[in-house]
């Protein structure tokens, strides 16, 4: 690594990290929040076997999982305006990432819901609770605990996935690295530097996940 490259990298440090903090992280946060809400709703509809809505949920998961995220981004941002739906780049990205990851997370949630021993539902009925009360207070908390590692996975995957927002004009970390590279042409080092920031973010999430799991490992520690 030459003196020149080092200077470029130092100079680029904040210029890449800043959009990381200002764009990548908020994009991840809002997309994940949306995905989480979608996943819980879609999983519960399937778990409770709600007619018609369940079919719609299956279709949604089938469609999302069977098409590439990049294509979905293009459809939402460049395609939808043709039928009069014009979205700004950031909302378009959040919607796409949210609905995309939501489909995968819904499957994790559904599995976690189904893993909760059914007898507790019957016990809930027998002490006079309604189905919704049982779901909200007994089943869902246990399912969220079970789904936690898999949801963390989705969050990590989403941090990296936001780099795709660069293709719809959003200047997040990776796009910023591209812009700087266009000036200095040091693709190896500059892209590695961007990669390092993704690694950093994901590492922090992994640490939080570990701490979270420790805290949640309860209902008495033993399973």
């Amino acid at each position, binding site marked *: 690594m030459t003196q020149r490259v080092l200077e470029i990298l130092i100079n680029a440090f904040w210029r890449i990290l800043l959009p990381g903090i200002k764009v990548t992280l908020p994009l991840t946060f809002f997309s994940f929040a949306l995905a989480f809400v979608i996943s819980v709703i879609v999983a519960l509809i399937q778990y409770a076997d709600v007619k018609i809505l369940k079919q719609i949920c299956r279709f949604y998961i089938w469609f999302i999982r069977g098409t590439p995220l990049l294509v979905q981004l293009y459809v939402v941002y460049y395609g939808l305006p043709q039928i009069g739906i014009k979205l700004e780049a950031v909302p378009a990205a959040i919607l796409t990432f949210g609905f995309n990851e939501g489909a995968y997370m819904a499957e994790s949630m559904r599995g976690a819901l189904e893993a909760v*021993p059914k*007898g*507790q539902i*019957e*016990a*809930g*009925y*027998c*002490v*006079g*609770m*309604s189905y919704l*009360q049982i779901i909200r*207070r*007994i089943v869902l*908390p*246990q399912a969220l*605990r079970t789904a936690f590692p898999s949801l963390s996975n989705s969050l990590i995957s989403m941090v990296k996935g936001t780099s795709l927002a660069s293709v719809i004009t959003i200047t997040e970390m990776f796009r910023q690295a591209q812009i700087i590279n266009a000036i200095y042409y040091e693709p190896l080092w500059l892209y590695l530097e961007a990669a390092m920031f993704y690694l950093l973010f994901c590492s922090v999430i992994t640490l939080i996940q570990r701490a979270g799991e420790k805290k949640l490992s*309860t*209902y*008495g*520690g*033993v*399973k």
Partner: protein
Amino acid sequence: MLLKVENVHKSFNVEVLKGISLEVNKGDVVAILGPSGSGKTTLLRCINFLEKAEQGTLTFDDVTYDLATISKKDINNIRKKTAFVFQNYNLFLNKTVLQNVTEGLIIGRGMDKNKAREIAVAALKRVGMDNRLDAFPSQLSGGQQQRVAIARALATDPEIIYFDEPTSALDPELIGEVLNVMRDLAEDGMTMLVVTHEMNFARNVSSKIVFMDEGEVIETADPETFFENPKEERAKTFVQGIISARN
């Protein structure tokens, strides 16, 4: 008469209940006995609407309902006067011992929190579990969990408690503690309908035996008559089987 069911039919592909009828009076401890697969558990689950019977009537507190068409509202009303103890305890795994008992009171019945806590602690005291209020089910032995489940049932002040093989999932050395609690309840006059394989309990604690086989009630008798002098052939075989198994 507190509870009466008549002509209950239920099928899972094959017919498992073929027109069952039985009666429980206030203060009765009725033991339902019979070989595995005779439909005892299914009957209990139909009586508390955990399974839907295809045919039959249920009379509770002098009101008669059709089991096949009973409304959700009626089901909820009856359930609020009954309690159920499961073979596998079915405690809420994300709740503490205390919360397991208060949950139905606070959430199911809208009771004030302090009052619910008071009732729950009293119920847990009755089963000897008031020293583990903050433990989670996973930290308890099977016998302790079942005692908490019984406290959960007691706390709702039911007119009758249904027990579905309450000791069948327990290690042999833990069975006694649960049976003792049940015996205390019986002595206090609690009405109980108990599906069980515990012949000593059936013989010494219950006031009536209902013997079932292949989805039918074969014989109904007081415990002494049933164990000493059963009338029906299948009941005789069953009792002899128990005696020879013991010797």
